[in-house]
């Protein structure tokens, strides 16, 4: 892809990732955050965290299936946006929902499995965000960096479970996200096994 093509791609990705925030801001400005604004904002940010996270996890499978290389150029940007949305989602819970009621929030983190996995998903994203720069990749070395960044699969599992465990039973939405995550992981596994059969050396360098 040309340099101009890459820039255009990133501009589109930035715009797409900022659009949900913009829409939220617009609805806040027009006083249209429903009767329960805090719950609405929390759910909105949570939904978009999960969506952007799943899109970031779809880039490698997209390359596997299509052979295109451009999706890889978007992984970092999408991953960082997922982290940004997750952080905002957490901040709303901390500030607007519980207003720094540390004791109750601490108890919830320990006692409520959906909050435990949600916090886990967020915490696991911190080292990934912190080592997202080219300098960090150089310092860690490619192999170690890739191993570290496989934590994102754990984040994905935790994020999907977070939604599954908090939603009421009659709501089918979390199952859709779980299904998408499973399909993405299955394509990855297929890609790994295909590469392993082509290249008998274990731990091949192109593991995504």
């Amino acid at each position: 892809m040309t340099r101009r093509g890459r820039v255009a791609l990133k501009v589109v990705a930035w715009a797409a990732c900022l659009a949900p925030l913009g829409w939220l801001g617009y609805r806040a400005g027009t006083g249209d955050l429903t009767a329960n604004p805090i719950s609405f904002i929390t759910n909105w940010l949570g939904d978009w965290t999960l969506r952007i996270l799943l899109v970031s996890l779809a880039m490698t499978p997209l390359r596997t299936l299509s052979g295109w290389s451009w999706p890889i150029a978007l992984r970092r940007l999408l991953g960082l946006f997922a982290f940004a949305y997750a952080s905002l989602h957490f901040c709303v819970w901390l500030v607007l929902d519980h207003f720094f009621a540390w004791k109750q929030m601490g108890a919830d983190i320990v006692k409520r499995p959906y909050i435990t996995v949600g916090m886990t998903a967020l915490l696991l994203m911190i080292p990934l965000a912190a080592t997202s720069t080219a300098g960090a990749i150089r310092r860690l070395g490619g192999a170690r960096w890739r191993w570290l960044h496989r934590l994102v699969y754990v984040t994905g599992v935790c994020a999907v479970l977070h939604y599954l465990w908090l939603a009421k039973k009659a709501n089918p939405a979390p199952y859709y996200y779980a299904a998408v995550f499973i399909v993405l992981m299955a394509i990855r596994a297929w890609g790994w096994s295909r590469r392993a059969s082509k290249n008998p050396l274990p731990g091949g360098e192109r593991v995504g």
Partner: protein
Amino acid sequence: MLIKRGGDIKGGEITDQALYVNRRAFMAGAAALALTPSVAAPGMAAAAAPPAAGQPLAAARNKAFDIPDAATKFQDATTYNNFYEFGVNKDDPSNLAGTLKPRPWKVQVDGLVHKPATFDVDDVLKMAPLEERVYRLRCVEGWSMVIPWIGFPLSVLLKRVDPTGSAKYVEFSTLVAPEQFPAQKKGFFNFGGLDWPYTEGLRLDEALHPLTLLTVGMYGQVLPNQNGAPIRVVIPWKYGFKSAKSLVRIRLTAEEPKTAWNKAAPQEYGFYSNVNPKVDHPRWSQATERRIGEFRRRETLMWNGYDQVAGLYAGMDLKKQY
């Protein structure tokens, strides 16, 4: 939410299947209305027009139930609803409720009673003077409202059918009509829902408690569709899902009735489901709630503040019989 709704067609544009399938019953109902002007609710201008949502409904405020809490805004109470027959989202009921036809409407009251009967809802409206009562409403999800309901004690209706000595429980059933309740339609993406009809239940002494309100209106108006038109119960010391909506049947039984949410998740939604800040939902705390319209959470009150019901549960282990 990713759920795609078929929301492009407005309720009023759909041919009313319930009407043409059941037109004989409809015409009989319309004729009865026309012949008996007194059937119409108080405050109605024309007897022939059935009371519709939004029309005023006269009721005297029963000050005995006044609470210091300010009433929730009407706009909030009618756009932020759980009514799973319309969908799982809070705005589904207000967006989709146009398909519900609250007239003509009959309520069958039967089971272990001496005088089973099927009442037209407009006759139920005349059974007792309508009162306005301002009740707290606490949702099991952790939010709450304050709503001025209009109705009269359910005990009036129950006494009219005269429960037998073996009646111990009351079961409430909501209408099943997929053409009126979109989420009742079977579909590939509709899995995981509740079993229809939505059923709820009370012990007979709970049902006879003066707080238990047979409800036909709110905010001085006929009950809006999304709030359970034309007739529902309101049990203010229990989590909101106990207060079943759009009732077509009230049945007296000897056995504890099966209830919709209990069937869906028995360990989460017990038969009693009394508001209790000390008994958590298995997945979240019930110690606090967000009152709609307020910023900070407030402490949840035992029995939702209705201490007068405590005697109904004397000697019970509220952690076990949740």
